[in-house]
């Protein structure tokens, strides 16, 4: 009798599992709006923006954490900080420093700035993560964060590129953005500079730039897709 029960229960479990799996396979992918559907595009752009903004917010959070860690262990004295000449390698990129300035920029320019920043930080962060991994002063937690930060920049850039593509497809912005995707064109001569950057300065600079990216993305979103959330 127990044997029968066991076999029956196994069969039932198998059936249930099959049912669930089939369901998952069917429903696994979120509904993707195909190109050409007007209503679907707008919604998807908003979702893309939201996702990108969330991404940038997380990136900025990680960079803030790492920067404060560095500040605690390596630069306890504020005076010492004051004397450090913080020159970020991205200072050559012209970014709006105010709300009016940011609002005065066109959408395409704003998008370009975002992309420029993200592109500029891909290599330095990767090297930074490499140096931290080999450095014994940092714990695993910091190295993991650095790695995550590096990946996030990469993902965020792809995301923003997708958003730009979407916008260009929708006709919101012109097609001039694509030409900026090449990393070589952005920072040709700064390679030596960011190699000399200390890790702390790097973190300081990146924290600020991630904030810029997040803020620009929000402005862009609220300008393109006006919602009550803005």
């Amino acid at each position: 009798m127990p044997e029968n029960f066991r076999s029956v229960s196994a069969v039932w479990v198998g059936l249930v599992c099959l049912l669930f799996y089939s369901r998952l396979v069917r429903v696994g992918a979120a509904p993707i709006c195909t190109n050409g559907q007007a209503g679907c595009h707008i919604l998807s752009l908003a979702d893309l923006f939201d996702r990108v903004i969330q991404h940038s917010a997380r990136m900025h959070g990680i960079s803030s954490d790492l920067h404060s860690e560095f500040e605690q262990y390596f630069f306890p004295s504020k005076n010492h900080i004051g004397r450090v000449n913080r020159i970020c390698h991205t200072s050559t990129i012209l970014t709006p420093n105010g709300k009016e300035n940011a609002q005065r920029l066109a959408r395409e320019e704003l998008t370009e700035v975002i992309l420029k920043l993200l592109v500029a930080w891909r290599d330095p962060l990767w090297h930074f993560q490499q140096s931290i991994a080999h450095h014994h002063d940092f714990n695993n937690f910091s190295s993991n964060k650095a790695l995550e930060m590096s990946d996030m920049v990469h993902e965020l850039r792809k995301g923003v590129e997708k958003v730009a593509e979407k916008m260009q497809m929708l006709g919101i912005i012109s097609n001039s953005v694509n030409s900026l995707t090449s990393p070589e064109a952005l920072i040709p001569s700064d390679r030596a500079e960011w190699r000399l950057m200390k890790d702390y300065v790097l973190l300081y600079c990146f924290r600020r730039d991630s904030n810029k990216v997040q803020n620009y993305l929000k402005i862009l979103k609220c300008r393109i897709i006006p919602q009550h959330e803005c």
Partner: protein
Amino acid sequence: MRRAVGSVPLLLMLFFIGHAKETRYSPPGKPKLTSCRSPEKETFTCWWEPGSDGGLPTTYALYYRKENSDAVYECPDYHTAGENSCFFNKNDTSIWVNYNITVVATNALGSNFSDPVDVDVVYIVQPHTPENVTVTVMEDKDGPFLRVSWEPPRKADTRSGWITLIYELRVKLEGEEEWEEHRAGQQKMFNIFSLRSGGMYLVQVRCKPDHGFWSEWSSTTYIKVPDYFPRETSVWILIAVFSAFIFFILTWILNLKSNSVKHCLLPPVPGPKIKGFDKQLLKNGRSEEVFSALVVPGFPPTTSSDCEDLLVEYLEVYTPEEQELILEEGKDLQEGCLKSKGSPSDSDSGRGSCDSHTLLMEKCGEGEGKEEKHQERAQKGKRQQKHQTGWEEGDVSHTREDVLSPDMSEGRVKTWPSVFSPLPQYSSRPLDHQGSLETARQLCLSDSLFPPPSTSSHLSYNAKEGLALGSGQQEFYLGKKQTHPSNPQSQPRWHLQAHSDFNISSMDRKQAASGLQLPGFRSTEYVEVQRVNQEDMVILQPLFSSSCQRDGHLQIGQGEDYSKVKGVDSGNMLLLQREVEVKREEEDGDRYSCDIQDRVTESCYTTSTAASSQVTGKPTSCAGTAMPVQEEMVLAANGYVDQNITSVH
């Protein structure tokens, strides 16, 4: 001289004044920048704390340098934000730019620089409190709830996405100490549930940019919740009422049926039902008293009349053919007089056959109807005679054992009617057969045969071969038995009815006369109860040696008849009459009267109280000896006497 003397006090005064100045005046102390804040990320203000002023009017100046630039700028606005503050307007504010700010305090004697502070406006944002905080009471199916709504601070530009604010609100009841805080995220509305009916609530809201400082709490908004009845409480009240109702009903039912419930849960423990048993005595621990109390005066019945009621005595007659007849249904007969009369209620105790309903027990007070009973008995006796004839034909031996039915061992005695039931079987006996048997002893059979070794005290006719006139002792086993209740004539007496005719031989001679006696009891004899043996058997002896001896005619071997029952007196005494045997011996009419009166007292049929039974024999008065046989028959017809048997021991 005079001028030198006059300038001395002046010099002294100057010296003193100068001294005083030096002690009181000093360069200003070091100022300290306390904080810099930006309410909307477009302007910001810095505050400093002045040090000691050194006694001199001190001026403060704030200088700042922008990131990676050596140009030093001074604070554009010292007044907007109040004293010791510097306000940077929109034009002067650059976001994501590091400001290096320094405050300088200057007085007449010197100046002092504060420590420089690096400020990035993005990270010093602290918005104003949210505005237009409104709280309203809304109704819901579960009850009322609070809806709190607010607006972002006026200057914070959230619509363009420049600032993203998250909000937080807190609520508390009036009078409480602790607030209940809720994060509202970016929404500008919040619902508060689970309110206390009729309570006064306080609500406050504040906000914070995603990277910045929390604003101050907004001014308290008071809201009063109206009185309402919570649904949960009403449900609980309903449940409580219902349970109370059911509880009361159960209690009432329990009260009503308390007895049966008690009986069911705590079944009564059967106590000892021994007659005369006193629990209290036992508890007291005196066994002697207890056991003495058990001795009921009326128990076991000895010579009391109760025993007479209980006793039924039988006379066993052994007839081989009549074995079936004598078979007794027995059950009702088995019960002896174990119980004194008059104990009806106790079901547990052993009940004597005396009280059995199945057994008819007639008390002594029924002497009135005895006559009739006697007659009936006589009739029965007649019928019995037929049995006797059959019996006579058969084995006359006293080997009653053969005849004994299994019931015999129990000492059961048939009642008269039961005995007579099988009568028809024997009715076919030829008369002549009977007639021949007439000569045999006539025993008034009561019922069944009793085994000689049985413990029952019974009167059985022990007829031997040589019984006829030559027999010696004849033992009569009185069977005590209760008659069948259905027998109207049944008497609690032992049916001695020992109309045994020992004088078989004489009977033969008197066959003619005996033939007349066929229908009835032919002969009666005087029977003397000799003794009661250990088996409660009353041994009757033909009374020959008693008073009749004087006549000298009576001898043992003369085969006189003693089993003639004269009658039953009122004292339940079976009066046995000696037959006028003298007739046979002496036909000269010599007669005698025997004053032998047999009194056989009834003794309870019990094995345990054998000793108590006494059988005494008394001479019965002889009725007219010269009477014809018929008379005797008549007498015999009436001759059933309730005999009181008293033990001879």
